[in-house]
């Protein structure tokens, strides 16, 4: 008995040894458990408020396997303490009567979401507004107030990025983030460090990959070990200055770090520039873009001081939101579509205030790099696809993957040239690579799979309480 028909159990993730069973990637029972244990409890990225600027605007997104509607209602004025726009909601895209999708467009503007099956109709605030034959067939007895669209338990618009969770017991988003917020800001703030000054560029790219969702998730934790697989792209020179795939001159002078948050499950790579050293020039193929970013970097230094020495690199917000803060600036969500399939949704971002020439240049570069036709992402997809397929067999499943790289070399309270870096840090400047961040993803994944409630998962609250008790 290989355990193929068993679900999650302790030992599949063995961080003491740095080994993880292939079962967690290919076992369908574990996949089914993930839907309840992870995706029904964690905070998930749904979309960006620049996608729904006007009352009645909607964008159909996903949370785990569920289709959801991100929309802005039509309530205006002082009654709800709002200015010009309605409130943002996230609803399950499923009619309360028989479950049909009430919205089958990708995005748009509407007064109502009408189910095409029997005609139940909902306002953009989720209330059940129309019931065919309400007087005649229901004798006006159906309590419509109880049959609105199912709304998420909690929603947070963080600097324009909309996150939501189905779990009313989950901690508020700011608490879920913890100090990782400073790293998330590297993606959500404008290039000059202005709060949330970005917008979605163009449409959302969506495509399917035949692999488990955790393959791309771990890759974006800051797996720099796989750079070899992008060597052909680097040789082709798709980067915005004509060489490599990104402008990476900071590598020559910065400390290269992997940063993890043990209790949260978030992690990212970063570069930390030496004190007093300006950010290297970038975007050499376009003088306008190069000048714009140089100006923004200067502004960012003025605004954020020493913290502006931190330059973003790929990261992962637990469980399935990938961050790519610099080149290209994108967020990806790895939607689970069965144990053996992932649907990728990728958002691209630019500064709202950037000149049109900058946005045009970036669009060309972004899609050259990322997405189903992006040359760098194609390398990754090929790896995930075949790694997954070659791990499904009964023999393959008996042999765990190795995650030993750098085990035991992590540092708390890391500082360099006067700048303290929040989180647990692995300095890979000399080591070149580590699986520190990947281990963190699976540490948190195993905690979610094992825990029955947020009381068990919010370990930092217990620490806070013990501090309070000690002080008393």
């Amino acid at each position, binding site marked *: 008995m290989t355990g193929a028909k068993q679900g999650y159990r302790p030992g599949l993730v063995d961080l003491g040894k740095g080994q993880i069973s292939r079962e967690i990637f290919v076992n369908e029972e574990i996949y089914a458990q993930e839907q309840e244990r992870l995706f029904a409890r964690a905070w998930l990225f749904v979309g960006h408020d620049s996608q729904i600027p006007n009352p009645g605007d909607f964008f159909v997104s996903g949370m785990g396997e569920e289709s959801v509607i991100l929309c802005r209602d039509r309530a205006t004025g002082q009654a709800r303490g709002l200015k010009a726009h309605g409130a943002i909601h996230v609803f399950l895209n499923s009619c309360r009567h028989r479950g049909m999708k009430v919205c089958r467009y990708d995005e748009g503007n*509407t*007064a*109502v979401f*009408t189910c*095409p099956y029997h005609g139940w109709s909902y306002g953009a605030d989720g209330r059940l507004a*129309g019931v065919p034959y309400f007087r005649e067939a229901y004798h006006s007895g159906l309590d419509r107030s109880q049959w609105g669209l199912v709304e998420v338990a909690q929603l947070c618009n963080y600097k324009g990025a909309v996150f939501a969770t189905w779990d009313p017991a989950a901690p508020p988003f700011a608490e879920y983030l913890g100090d990782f917020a400073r790293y998330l800001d590297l993606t959500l703030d404008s290039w000059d460090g202005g709060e949330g000054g970005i917008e979605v560029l163009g449409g959302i790219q969506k495509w399917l990959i035949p692999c488990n969702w955790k393959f791309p998730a771990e890759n974006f934790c800051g797996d720099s070990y796989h750079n070899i697989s992008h060597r052909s792209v680097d040789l082709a020179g798709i980067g915005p200055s004509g060489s490599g795939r990104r402008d990476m001159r900071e590598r020559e002078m910065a400390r290269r770090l992997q940063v993890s948050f043990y209790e949260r499950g978030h992690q990212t790579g970063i570069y930390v520039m030496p004190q007093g050293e300006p950010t290297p020039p970038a975007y050499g193929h376009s003088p306008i873009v190069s000048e714009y970013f140089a100006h923004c970097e200067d502004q960012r230094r003025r605004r954020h001081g020493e913290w502006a020495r931190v330059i973003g690199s790929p990261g992962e917000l637990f469980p399935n939101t990938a961050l790519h803060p610099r080149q290209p600036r994108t967020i990806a969500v790895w939607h689970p579509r069965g144990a053996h399939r992932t649907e990728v949704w990728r958002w691209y971002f630019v500064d709202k205030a950037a000149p049109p020439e900058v946005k045009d240049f970036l669009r060309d570069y972004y899609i050259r790099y990322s997405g189903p036709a992006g040359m760098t992402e194609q390398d990754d997809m090929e790896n995930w696809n075949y790694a997954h397929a070659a791990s499904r067999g009964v023999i393959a499943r008996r042999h765990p993957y190795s995650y030993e790289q750098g085990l035991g070399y992590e540092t708390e309270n890391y500082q360099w040239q006067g700048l303290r870096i929040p989180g647990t840090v692995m300095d890979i400047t000399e080591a070149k690579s580590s699986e520190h961040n990947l281990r963190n993803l699976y540490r948190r994944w195993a905690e979610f799979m094992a825990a029955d409630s947020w009381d068990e998962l919010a370990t930092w609250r217990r620490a806070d309480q013990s501090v309070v008790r000690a002080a008393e």
Partner: protein
Amino acid sequence: MSELVNTRLLTPGMQIVLVDGAIAEVVSNPLDGVWVFARYLSSPTDPSVVGSEEMIFAQDIVEAREP
């Protein structure tokens, strides 16, 4: 038998006759092919609804009139 009304062609200001004989004026049309928003002008079965705005189900509409 009256001709089936295509609710997607109804525009604000048009009058619609409902299956119970009520007459209403179209206020807005979400173009979902299922509902229109309309204000009752008359209602032989329930005069209390006159003046109120309601969502009218497409299958309750038997006739459409230009204003």
